[in-house]
């Protein structure tokens, strides 16, 4: 049996005219069957990485293999092994959904006898059977994304690249696409390399996440490990009576480190031993006679990870002026790799 291979990248660099390094020496490994989330703001280098790994752009330096094939030397073998849905949904507005499948199937070399059946199956799977004979120009954004995904899956790829697949989709379409990606990985063993700028998407879908900023991976690991690595959950409570704030602080102090409150009349503590202490905290407050008006447990997010690694929040990071050619500075050094 042939061993399934995922993605292996070492020191990958992609430089554009003017010396701009969109990808600035990244290393990553994606195991076969894994969903790898590549998270970062706009302009971080996600799409350029995808274009290099899918053979659409040659790397300037470094080495990458996809499904065991070198992206620089064996592009045709890489392309045969992968399915790709790029950031911009690339459809022919004049062709129907079914005609897209026919064209793609023919170019992929799927035998004529299988082509129509396979196309119809995939159109049904992505919920486009009823729209199969309509021109793609009449499709909604979500329908176009689903057709794009069906086209990427047509030749049964072992590795699927999805470049910001849910950007611009409504919640329903986004959830449906997540379910399909999850199913592909869990049931069919497809390796998925997914870029996203949505924290929730990486958190929900990815087995492991690589956080990229200005062409460099700044952190990598499972979402839980990454979050645990930068911060612990915080309990924030608002006493029913504001004069109980002092008592609440005294009660909470043994559970962790008191942190500045986010709003007036609240008390917050970063828990030493995680969210498991919540029951104990409530009991202690009750014993001390502190009535609680509001209590919340704040888990760290991947944004906290991004903030810790780059000094910026992921949401809005793209709006800040970035100089992709700038040398790394501050905590943009070697990425932290957190074991799963």
């Amino acid at each position, binding site marked *: 049996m042939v061993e399934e291979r995922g993605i292996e990248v070492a020191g990958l660099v992609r430089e554009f005219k003017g010396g701009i390094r969109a990808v600035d020496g990244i290393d990553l490994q994606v195991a076969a069957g894994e969903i790898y989330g590549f998270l970062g703001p706009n302009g971080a280098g996600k799409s350029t990485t995808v274009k290099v790994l899918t053979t659409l752009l040659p790397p300037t330096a470094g080495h990458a293999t996809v499904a065991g094939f070198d992206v620089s030397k064996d592009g045709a073998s890489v392309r045969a092994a992968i399915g790709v849905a790029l950031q911009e949904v690339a459809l022919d507005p004049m062709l129907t959904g079914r005609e897209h499948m026919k064209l793609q199937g023919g*170019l992929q070399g*799927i035998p004529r006898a299988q082509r129509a059946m396979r196309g119809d199956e995939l159109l049904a799977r992505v919920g486009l059977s009823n729209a199969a004979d309509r021109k793609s120009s009449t499709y909604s954004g979500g329908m176009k994304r689903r057709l794009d995904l069906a086209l990427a899956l047509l030749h*049964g790829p072992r590795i699927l690249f999805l470049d910001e697949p849910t950007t611009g989709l409504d919640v329903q379409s986004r959830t449906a696409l997540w379910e399909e990606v999850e199913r592909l990985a869990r049931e069919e063993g497809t390796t998925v390399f997914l870029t996203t700028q949505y924290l929730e998407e990486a958190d929900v879908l990815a087995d492991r996440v690589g956080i990229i900023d200005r062409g460099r991976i700044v952190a990598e690991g499972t979402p839980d490990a990454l979050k645990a690595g930068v911060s612990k959950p915080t309990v924030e409570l608002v006493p029913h009576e504001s004069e109980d704030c002092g008592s609440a602080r005294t009660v909470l102090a043994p559970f962790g480190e008191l942190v500045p409150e986010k709003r007036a009349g609240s008390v917050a503590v970063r828990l030493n031993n995680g969210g498991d202490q919540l029951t104990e905290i409530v009991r202690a407050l009750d014993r001390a006679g502190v009535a609680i008006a509001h209590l919340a447990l704040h888990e760290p997010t991947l944004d906290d990870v991004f903030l810790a690694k780059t000094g910026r929040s992921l949401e809005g990071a793209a709006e800040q002026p970035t100089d992709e050619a700038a040398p790394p500075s501050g905590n943009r050094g070697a990425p932290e790799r957190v074991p799963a």
Partner: protein
Amino acid sequence: MTAATATGSSTLTQVGLLAGRAVSHVLRQPAQLIFPIAFPLVLLGVNSSGLDAATRLPGFPAGSYLDFALAIPFMQGALFAALNGGQDLARDIQNGFLDRLALTPMSGGALLAGQLGGALFMGIVSAVLYLVVGVLFGVGIASGVAGALVLLLLAIAISFAFACFGTFVALRAGSGEAVQGFFPLFFVLLFLSSAFFPRDLIEHDWFRTVATYNPVSYMVEGIRSLVITGWDGQALAQAFGISAIAIVLFLVLSSRALRTRLLRT
């Protein structure tokens, strides 16, 4: 779920699929089919009515201006087909469809051939139509039935040459606007050729000189010779020769532009 068995498609299959797509583009956009065919015919009608008096000039080579001017629609139709084909290709580049194609085993040659197949289809349809309309309105083909077939062949070659140019501009510039921006130049070239008046009857020296060095003149004169002269070996050799040179030149340039455009490894 049925597993797909990709065995790799032959270049011929790829060309067929891409040419079929290009043809369906033409058929599904009435403006791409009707306007390029109707406009040259309307212009032919207007010119042949208004300029018929020109045939009374001493030395004018034809008895009717319609006979003389029938070559013009072939040139205009070729230009429109090239413009539309180029714009379609530019749109593929702009909306990322070319990347989708590049991710399949499609060869660059198949892409070019498929793309040009659509333009060739338009060239054949419009050339046949212009000839039929001309004959129906009384144009006599001096070189006979065989000449009419050669005329069609030449018109298709000219159309193909222009299509190669449109493909090159689309691949080089990657924008539909750039393709569109280039084509007024060709209309100027057409007007500065012998399309509307015989070269030896052009009064102004500069115009005659430009028309003499303008390759479009020789393409027009090749078609015209079959209609009004009969078999003129020199005119045909020049027209086919210039078309062949243009085809080879712009195919080579298009291949290079495609290689630059498709950076895939």
